[in-house]
């Protein structure tokens, strides 16, 4: 918007006045004013112009809120009264039992009272709106609470009995049932080495394949794209147990491979491949086509363009995909049951003999009767959980958009990538569009 330069020379007049209000805004007192613009200067960069009168004082900003005092009172009152009522009833009627039932009854009564209270105080639509708000908040809190609880719970069960030294240096070879301080003599080294090797092999073999497939789908295209996309979606929905018995039936039953860590890697590739392909394809799609065109216009062949321009631009997305893919396969148990088979002793050679892995140790030890083994299983679970958490957090850090353009960059943040790794979310461009 342009203004004439000589506009500033005339003194502007006041607008047609109502009674000018000296006092500041009537504030319901709701919502914190984040930022008070009271005081003299409002100007951001421009120096003050002498001819424009500045207001003496601006009122503080408010943000009106839906939830006022009376609403909070209704919520608290409903919560307390329903709690008391259910408590009384629960102890009278001994047919109900357990904390779960108590909570369910309390919650149901709480919702009813909130509805009735708000309907009386305001109106029915507001009551329904309030109850829905409570329900959705509860649902989200429930799932988030369970997740946090599980993570903390695993740690709480594992850490008290942890023998850090033994855990990482011993395997289960020396386990004797009646040993005192048995946990000092056993560890999960075999599981850690096994998982490491299997996941590493799967990643080293699977990621280039996945990236190549993604390049095919997004950069090269041509015949077969729709088919391959369908196939990749189909594969991403394949149960992990099927991946395991597939490798078993194709390679182990036929004696091409023994039970081994390598066979497990192949099964893990079946799971890793579609997830990483889908994510990398999306990441590649986001790379601006102008970059490709610029490179081609300079005379670079396509492979050079992809290698030197497209992939480096997509690097953070690809890294995120790899990190999350690893997080996904390190926790898979079912494919390993049929391929690596599990072992009590350290086997550092992934190409021959049964090999252990973290999930397998948990699987076999937790069903034993000895509490020592159960403790060991929890410790292995703790290690596994920590690995997944670290990878998850690393992926989020990596996936964060590089801050140059602020929030509105083209790269997708990690929270869009995440569901696609663990869930067979359909790709854009899948059949059906």
């Amino acid at each position, binding site marked *: 918007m342009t203004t004439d330069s000589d506009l500033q020379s005339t003194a502007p007049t006041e607008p047609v006045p109502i009674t000018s209000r000296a006092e500041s805004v009537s504030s319901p007192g709701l919502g914190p004013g984040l930022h008070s613009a009271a005081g003299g200067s409002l100007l951001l960069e421009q120096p003050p112009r002498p001819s424009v009168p500045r207001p003496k004082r601006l009122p503080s900003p408010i943000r009106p809120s839906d939830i006022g005092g009376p609403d909070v009172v209704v919520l608290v009152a409903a919560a307390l009264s329903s709690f008391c009522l259910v408590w009384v009833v629960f102890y009278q009627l001994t047919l109900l*039992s357990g904390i779960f039932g108590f909570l369910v009854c309390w919650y149901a009564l709480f919702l009813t009272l909130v509805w009735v209270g708000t309907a009386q105080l305001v109106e029915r639509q507001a009551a329904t709106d309030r109850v829905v708000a409570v329900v959705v908040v509860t649902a989200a809190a429930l799932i988030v609470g369970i997740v946090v609880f599980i993570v903390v719970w695993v740690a709480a069960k594992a850490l008290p009995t942890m023998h850090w030294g033994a855990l990482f240096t011993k395997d289960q070879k020396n386990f004797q049932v009646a040993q005192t301080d048995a946990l000092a003599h056993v560890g999960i080294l075999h599981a850690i080495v096994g998982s490491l090797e299997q996941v590493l092999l799967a990643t080293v073999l699977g990621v280039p394949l996945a990236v190549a497939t993604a390049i095919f789908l997004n950069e090269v295209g041509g015949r077969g794209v729709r088919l391959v996309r369908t196939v990749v979606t189909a594969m991403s929905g394949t149960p992990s147990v099927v991946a395991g018995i597939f490798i078993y039936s194709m390679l182990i039953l036929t004696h091409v491979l023994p039970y081994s860590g390598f066979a497990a890697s192949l099964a893990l590739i*079946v799971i890793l491949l579609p997830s990483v392909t889908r994510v990398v394809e999306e990441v590649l799609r986001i790379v601006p086509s102008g970059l490709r065109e610029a490179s081609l216009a300079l005379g670079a062949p396509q*492979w050079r363009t992809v290698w030197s321009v497209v992939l480096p631009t997509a690097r953070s997305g690809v890294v995120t995909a790899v990190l999350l893919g690893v*997080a996904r396969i390190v926790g898979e148990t079912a494919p390993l049951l049929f391929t690596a088979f599990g072992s009590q002793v350290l086997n550092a050679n992934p190409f021959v003999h049964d090999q252990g892995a973290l999930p397998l140790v948990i699987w076999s030890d937790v069903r034993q009767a000895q509490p020592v083994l159960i403790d060991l299983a929890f410790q292995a679970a703790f290690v596994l959980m920590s690995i*997944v958490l670290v990878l998850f957090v690393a992926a989020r850090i990596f996936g964060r958009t590089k801050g140059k353009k602020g929030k509105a960059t083209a790269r997708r943040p990690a929270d869009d990538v995440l569901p696609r790794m663990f869930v067979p979310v*359909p790709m854009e461009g899948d059949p059906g*569009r």
Partner: protein
Amino acid sequence: MSSIVDVPRVDPAGRFPEPLRLVDDHGLGDKIFRRGVRLAGLFSLLILFFIGLFLFLQGFPALRRAGIHFFTSSGFQTLGAHPVYGVAASVVGTLEVAAVAMVVGTPVAVATAIFLSEYAPTWSRRSLIALVDLAAAIPSIIFGLWAVFEMQPNVVGFATWLSKHVAFVPFFRVNSPPLNASLFMAGLIVGIMIVPIVASICREVFSLAPPGEREAALALGATRWQMIRSVVIPFGRGGIVGAVMLGLGRALEETIAVSIVLGASFRISPYILQHGGSTISQLIAVNFGSGGKLGLQDLLFCGFVLFVMTLAINLAASRIVNRSRSGAGIEL
């Protein structure tokens, strides 16, 4: 004076000039590159094909041997001269676990998605979304551990109550305690596991609901829930259906958590609250290694059945979700 644009003239024979046919002459490097990545793409095709092929081939003898009894009878013998094997009990168990999981998980997931897309304050949204997604990342074996050691003891009381008071529904009847390691418990943990899946798809679809219509509803005096009900949910209907189907697919195939809860049980138990019960994937997982060759073929064919089932559901769901994403049918 304005200039007149030259109109291309048709030659006396009545033909327009031929458009140039452009041929992209790839160099050798590019030829190798393009062929290479195409091969990579076809590799995935191969894998999928082989999965179906090998499972079917190796498992088919079991079907041939048992005939229709494979699907209709129950019972599994790992030893014996003429073992008859039927997966009926496991099929029913799979369906029951999936049913419980859907009943428990779908409402929580849709409500969570509504919360994340409509109610969560902006500053917290990313973190909350991450926490819900973390639920998808937790390995299923850890869910299994938690279910057995923590969830089950606390829910057994509720299961007891259900068995006493809702026993008129045949499902919930119980012949004898204990009530743990039941299909109900398995369904409960699977229900929790599918919440992040269903929630993340629903959340994405809800966030695509057109802001113009949202504003229109609010400006007419709708409460937030009325706005969601009249604009967001109708818009996201297809996505919800697709998400539920994907959740169902997941619930049908969940192996490890179910196996840890149910244990190595082959008991036929249509009563979901009662101890015992089996699902197809659990059958495969716990049976492996204990059966002779016969048992193996049965298991492989089960795997084939599982594979085909989840394939069908996932492809159908994918079609529905994508159609909803593009807003097909909602034209403005």
